[in-house]
C-alpha cells in the first residue's frame, strides 16, 4: 500500500464535493444499486433500547464482530432520583431489568459500557462528544433518531432501527441509501437571548416537520461558525425533527479545541495526523447541493412551539395561529394540534401559563445550556415545579463545581441526576394529563411527555424564564432586567 498521505485520504482527485460526500465516499465498501451502498461504520452507540437487537443477535447465534467500535451507556431508563444508590435505587423491576440487561449484553459482546453509576454515564448523544468518541469524518450509528447530534463534529451520524443495530453489531457495516444534500446557510449574528435552539426551531418552522425528508443537511454560514460546540450540537440534534437523515457542520478550530485532550481523542503524533485529515473535511467551493436555503440570523427571536410537532413553532412574540388561515390537511393539522394543546386561536404565547418546566435532554443539557438557564434564574424564585437533569454525570459534577446547582436549588428548582428523563419519560418522569410544560427537549408530539401532556419546546434560557414567571415569557425582558 501507499504511505499515508493525509491530504488525499477520502479526497483523491475528484470533482468538487460536499463535506457529506467526502465522508460517504471514504466509507463505501461496495456500491449496491444506484443509490445504495454498503458503508463501513466507525462507531455505534448502544443504550437500553438495544435489548431487542441483542436478543435477536444472540438467538441467531451471531457474535459482535468489532466490539471496540461500540460503546454502550444507560440513559433512556435510568431514574433521575435516588441515583446515589446505583442500581439498587431503581424501584421499578421492569426498568431495572432493562438497565441490567444492557450491562449483561455489553459484557457478553465485550463492549465498553457505562452503567448507571459509572462516572462516564450520561445521555448517549452528550457523552459521545464529551468522551471524545465522536470525531470528524466518522460514520456513526445508534438506535436513536437523535444520533444526528454527532454531525456537529463533521461526522455522518444517523439513527437506525433494531434490525440495523443488530446488523452493525454482527458486521460493522450497514446498507445505506445515499441521501440528497441540503445546505442551510445562516449568516448574521444572534441577538442576546437567542440560542442554537431558537435557530433550529425557527428553521424547522420554516421548512416543516417533513421539510428535509431524504436529505442530509449541512449547516453553514457565519452564525453557525460563531456558535460553540454546544450550540452546534443542539442544531444538529434536531435535524431529524425536519425529517432529515442527518445534520452536519464542517469541523473547524472550535471543533478541534473542544476535542483536544478528551479521553478517546487521539494523542500526540496521532492527533497531528488526525488534525491534518480533519482539516480537509469541508465542502469545496464549487460543490453543488440538491437544495439550498439561506436564513438571516439577525431576524431570529426566542422561539416556542404551540402545536404537536416541532415544525409548529413561532417567535415568543407571536400568537396561536387560526386554523381558518389554512386549508385542507394543514387546517385539520392546526385544529387537531390546538384541540390537544387546549389553545384558542389568537392567544398570545407570551404570558401563557405553564404547570411545569423541564431542563434536560440531549438537545439542551450541556454545561452552556445550564449556564444560560442559571443566568436567568439567579436571584429569582421558581413559580412552578421545575427540575434540571444535566446531560451527563460529568456535566453534573462540572456544574456543581461552578455552583450552578446552588443557583437552581436556591430558586426552588430540583437538581437531579442525568438521563433522558422527561424527554421521553421511559424512566417514569412524566407529566400528568392536561399539564402544560415548557421543555428544553426536542419533541412535542401528543403523549411524548405523558398521556395528554402538553409540551412547549423552548431554549434553556426560555425554560428558565418560564420557571421563574410561571408562564411562557420572552426571556429578553428578564435579561434586560425588566
Amino acid at each position, binding site marked *: 500500500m501507499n504511505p499515508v498521505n493525509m491530504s488525499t485520504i477520502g479526497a483523491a482527485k475528484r470533482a468538487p464535493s460536499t463535506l457529506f460526500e467526502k465522508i460517504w465516499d471514504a466509507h463505501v465498501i461496495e456500491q449496491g444499486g444506484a443509490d445504495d451502498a*454498503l458503508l463501513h461504520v466507525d462507531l455505534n452507540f448502544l443504550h437500553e433500547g438495544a435489548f431487542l437487537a441483542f436478543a435477536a443477535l444472540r438467538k441467531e447465534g451471531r457474535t459482535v464482530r468489532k466490539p*471496540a467500535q461500540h460503546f454502550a451507556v444507560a440513559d433512556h431508563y435510568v431514574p433521575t432520583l435516588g441515583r446515589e444508590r446505583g442500581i439498587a435505587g431503581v424501584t421499578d423491576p421492569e426498568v431495572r431489568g432493562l438497565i441490567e440487561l444492557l450491562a449483561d449484553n455489553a459484557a457478553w459482546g465485550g463492549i465498553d459500557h457505562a452503567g448507571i453509576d459509572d462516572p462516564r454515564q450520561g445521555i448517549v448523544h452528550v457523552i459521545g462528544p464529551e468522551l471524545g468518541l465522536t470525531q470528524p469524518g466518522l460514520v456513526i450509528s445508534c438506535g436513536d433518531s437523535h444520533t444526528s447530534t454527532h454531525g456537529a463534529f463533521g461526522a455522518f451520524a444517523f439513527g437506525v432501527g433494531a434490525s440495523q443495530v443488530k446488523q452493525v453489531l454482527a458486521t460493522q457495516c450497514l446498507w445505506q441509501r445515499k441521501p440528497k444534500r441540503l445546505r442551510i446557510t445562516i449568516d448574521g449574528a444572534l441577538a442576546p437571548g437567542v440560542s442554537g435552539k431558537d435557530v433550529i426551531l425557527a428553521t424547522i418552522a420554516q421548512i416543516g416537520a*417533513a421539510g428535509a*425528508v431524504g436529505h442530509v443537511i449541512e449547516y453553514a454560514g457565519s452564525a453557525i461558525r460563531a456558535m460553540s460546540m454546544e450550540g452546534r450540537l443542539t442544531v444538529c440534534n434536531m435535524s431529524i425533527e425536519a425529517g432529515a*437523515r442527518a445534520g452536519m457542520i464542517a469541523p473547524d478550530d472550535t471543533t478541534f479545541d473542544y476535542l483536544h485532550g478528551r479521553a478517546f481523542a487521539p494523542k500526540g503524533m496521532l492527533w497531528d495526523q488526525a488534525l491534518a485529515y480533519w482539516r480537509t473535511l469541508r465542502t469545496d467551493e464549487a460543490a453543488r447541493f440538491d437544495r439550498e436555503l439561506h436564513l438571516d440570523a439577525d431576524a431570529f427571536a426566542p422561539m416556542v412551539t404551540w402545536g404537536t410537532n416541532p415544525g409548529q413553532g413561532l417567535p415568543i412574540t407571536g400568537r396561536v395561529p387560526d386554523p381558518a388561515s389554512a386549508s385542507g390537511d394543514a387546517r385539520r393539522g392546526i385544529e387537531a394540534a390546538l384541540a390537544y394543546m387546549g389553545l384558542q386561536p389568537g392567544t398570545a404565547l407570551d404570558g401563557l401559563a405553564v404547570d411545569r418546566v423541564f431542563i434536560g435532554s440531549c438537545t439542551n443539557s450541556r454545561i452552556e445550556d445550564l449556564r444560560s438557564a442559571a443566568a436567568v434564574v439567579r436571584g429569582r424564585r421558581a413559580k412552578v415545579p421545575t427540575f434540571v437533569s444535566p446531560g451527563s454525570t460529568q456535566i453534573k459534577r462540572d456544574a456543581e463545581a461552578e455552583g450552578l446547582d446552588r443557583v437552581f436549588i436556591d430558586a426552588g428548582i430540583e437538581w437531579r441526576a442525568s438521563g433522558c428523563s422527561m424527554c421521553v419519560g421511559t424512566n417514569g418522569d412524566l407529566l400528568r394529563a392536561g399539564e402544560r410544560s415548557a421543555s428544553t427537549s426536542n419533541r412535542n408530539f401528543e403523549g411524548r411527555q405523558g398521556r395528554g401532556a402538553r409540551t412547549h419546546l423552548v431554549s434553556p434560557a426560555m425554560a428558565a424564564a418560564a420557571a421563574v414567571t410561571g408562564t411562557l415569557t420572552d426571556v429578553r425582558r428578564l435579561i434586560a432586567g425588566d
Partner: protein
Amino acid sequence: MQPFTKLTAVAVPLDLSDVNTDMIIPARFLRKPLDARYGSYLFHDLRHDEDGRLRDSFVLNEAVYRDAQILVAGANFGCGSSRESAVYTLMGYGFRCVIAPSFGDIFVGNCLQNGVLPVVLPEAECAALRAWLDANPGATVTADLEAQTVTTPDGRIRTFALDPVRRERLLRGLDEIGLTLTRLPGIEAFEARYARARPWLARE
C-alpha cells in the same frame, strides 16, 4: 424475513398526516417483550380513551377493519423516533403494507427490514384512495410489488416506484446480515486499507 410479493387485503384509510412513532406505539410499551401482545399496542392512545375503553371514533376500531392489512395514511407517516417497535406493532396487528405520500426515512428502513412494504403515491392519489375507501368500507386493495402497482376493485391501477435493490430484497425476503457476510473478504480488505490510512482510530 418474510418476503413481500403481492397482497390483497382490506385497507383502512387513516386520515392523518405526520403520524409519528410515538402515536404508533407510545414509549411506555417499548420495554415490553416482543410477543403475541405486541399488536395490541398499535395506536394505543388513539384507539383507547383514558379509561382504556375503545374509542368508536377511531377508524381502526370499526368492525369492518378488523382484518385490515393495508394502511392508507397522510404525508410523513412514521416520522419521529427510530423505534423499530413501530413496525413490529403494525405487523403484530396484521399490517404488511402502508401507503402514504411520504414517510419518515428511518421508518422506511425499518419496514424494509421486516418485510413490510412502504408504498409512496402522490398526495392526491392517497387522498382519492382514502376517499374511495371511506365510501367503500371494508373494501380490499391489492399491493403488487412484482408489478409495482396498487389496484382497487373498481379497476383503478396506480403505479409506484421503489429502488430496485430494495425491491429485490423485499421480493426475496433477503436477510441483510447473511447478504453482508457473503462480502466478508471485501469488507476485510476495506478495513485493512481504512485502518492504515487512519492510524488514530485504532482502539483496543
